[in-house]
């Protein structure tokens, strides 16, 4: 059942939140082999459920009251371990709630626990987590994608009806595609980043991994909106996303990004995406092919900008105020170096060092400034495209889920997995991945990108697609 369906059932008195919550806690218990959760919070969940049942009994609350959910372990949760998938924060009990956590709790959602993730959200396979890799529910030998891999596996295996994620370079959309889910990344600034552990501040954005566009609409409507505690959160009114789902696709101008269909796109994935485009045409949309010539530079641009921002953001982990401290430091420098050397994993260290290098005097102009200029070019490509079309479409990932261990030793191959998703982050655009087929039993996704604050349009397109197809209702055979 989707979150929306559970909400309707709760309000119709078909079952209670306590019953639903117990059901999901039991499923989590039985699916330990997926390693989807870092922390399960059964007591907190039962308390939340009890409160939600009381609200529902009084005729209070909204469409999500009493519906269970899970948070990516990057969101601070008051009194609960918030590790960001890192040894560095493996002892960190957050002293406050992230705005996202606070808002979903106020809407009456029940927190089941905190999901596994790539360390500090740096990864595309959920293999960099200090807590071990997450397995893809569709095939346990495959990765679920990352960095929100735990949230994706949890929702795909129906251990939770819906979960939060964050997307810096594709970390919601890519795992969404690889696990058969709707993965929604809103416009930069649409959702508050307060209490969300920072990776790359000009790219990070919170969003949703869900079973349907309708669920994404409901959850996003609660998460989104201005927050004075995040100075980059935008003061733009949040529309009633669910109310706008019924918009017709007739006359929608779809741009197909030529650069997304080049070499490297796996055949079956390409076929599924082209079939989906035909589906939109049949619904009355018009399709034009467009070129965004600078888009192929988005991965190298990202791997300057994101490590630069990460090296700065992660300097706060110094072993002084919170996080891991090495045993018996000789002096302050030794404490910094060993605490950070022990607390961070290999990929995080690699990115901190990349960032340190590209920001250093003498190289700043050649790398960082240059990347910011190319970022402008990519942004201009998107802007030009959106003067001609309403949305852009293409694949979310070049291939279906790959094997655990297949790419860990080669960072460049791993980075190229985000080749279709990173552009939207650089330009701050909203984008969604929706399931559009199975290739050898593994899900693949159609990506829909829109102009700033076009969440409503993307959700309507995703919903229209899901009314026509059954891909989003397919379950991993082992968890059906």
């Amino acid at each position, binding site marked *: 059942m989707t979150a929306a369906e559970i909400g309707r059932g709760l309000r119709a008195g078909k079952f209670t939140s306590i019953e639903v919550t117990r059901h999901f806690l039991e499923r989590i218990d039985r699916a330990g082999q997926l390693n989807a959760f870092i922390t399960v919070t059964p007591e907190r969940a039962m308390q939340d459920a009890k409160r939600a049942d009381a609200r529902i009994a009084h005729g209070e609350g909204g469409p999500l009251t009493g519906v269970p959910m899970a948070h990516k372990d990057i969101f601070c949760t008051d009194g609960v371990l918030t590790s960001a998938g890192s040894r560095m924060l493996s002892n960190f009990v957050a002293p406050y709630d992230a705005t996202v956590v606070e808002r979903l709790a106020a809407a009456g959602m029940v927190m089941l626990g905190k999901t596994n993730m790539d360390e500090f959200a740096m990864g595309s396979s959920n293999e960099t987590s200090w807590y071990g890799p997450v397995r893809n529910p569709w095939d346990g030998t495959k990765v679920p994608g990352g960095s929100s891999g735990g949230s994706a596996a949890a929702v795909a295996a129906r251990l939770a009806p819906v979960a939060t994620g964050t997307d810096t370079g594709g970390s919601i959309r890519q795992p969404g595609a690889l696990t058969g889910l709707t993965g929604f990344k809103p416009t930069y600034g649409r959702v508050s980043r307060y209490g969300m552990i920072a990776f790359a501040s000009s790219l990070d954005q919170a969003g949703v991994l869900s079973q349907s566009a309708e669920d994404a609409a409901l959850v996003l409507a609660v998460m989104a909106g201005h927050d004075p505690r995040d100075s980059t959160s935008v003061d733009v009114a949040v529309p009633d996303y669910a109310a706008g789902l019924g918009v017709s696709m007739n006359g929608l101008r779809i741009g197909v990004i030529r650069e997304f269909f080049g070499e490297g796109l796996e055949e079956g994935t390409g076929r599924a995406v082209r079939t989906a485009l035909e589906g939109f045409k049949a619904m009355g949309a018009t399709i034009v092919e467009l070129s965004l010539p600078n888009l192929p530079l988005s991965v190298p641009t990202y791997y300057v900008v994101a490590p630069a921002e990460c090296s700065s953001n992660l300097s706060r982990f110094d072993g002084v105020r919170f996080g891991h401290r090495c045993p018996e430091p000789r002096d302050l420098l030794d404490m910094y170096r060993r605490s950070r050397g022990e607390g961070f994993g290999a990929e995080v*260290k690699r990115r901190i060092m990349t960032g340190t290098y590209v920001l250093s005097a003498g190289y700043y102009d050649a790398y960082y400034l240059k990347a910011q200029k190319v970022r402008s070019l990519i942004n201009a490509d998107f802007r030009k495209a959106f003067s001609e079309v309403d949305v852009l479409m293409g694949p979310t990932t070049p291939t279906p889920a790959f094997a655990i261990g297949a790419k860990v030793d080669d960072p460049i191959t791993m980075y190229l997995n985000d080749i279709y998703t990173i552009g939207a982050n650089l330009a701050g655009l909203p984008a969604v991945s929706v399931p559009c087929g199975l290739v050898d039993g593994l899900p693949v996704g159609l990506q829909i990108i829109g102009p700033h604050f076009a969440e409503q349009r993307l959700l309507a397109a995703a919903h229209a697609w899901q009314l026509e197809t059954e891909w989003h209702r397919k379950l991993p055979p082992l968890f059906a």
Partner: protein
Amino acid sequence: MYDFRQVFGIFPTPGAIVTLTRRDVEAIALLARLEITEEELPVYAGSLSRILGFIDQLAAAATEGVEPMAHPLENQVQALRDDVVTESDHRDRYQGNAPDVGAGLYLVPKVIE
């Protein structure tokens, strides 16, 4: 200011193959306040060289007269708030996460002998 050109000797030219040495990685790791073990040094030298070679393709992009973009939302003005206290005292709570505190202070190894 730390000038890497002196540390690394060469400035990478467009399309150049970047080769970081163990000594380069040691220098970067010191700046980043990371301890890297002897065995890890050549591994990072290899992967960082590949990453720098990969991002070096940006050098070929024509960016004359292009304004650098630091933030995805143009015309977005950083919000200011009134200069009034909004937080209450959470010191004890926050220090509950600290590795070493005493008398309400964060303790670190001796800095001045």
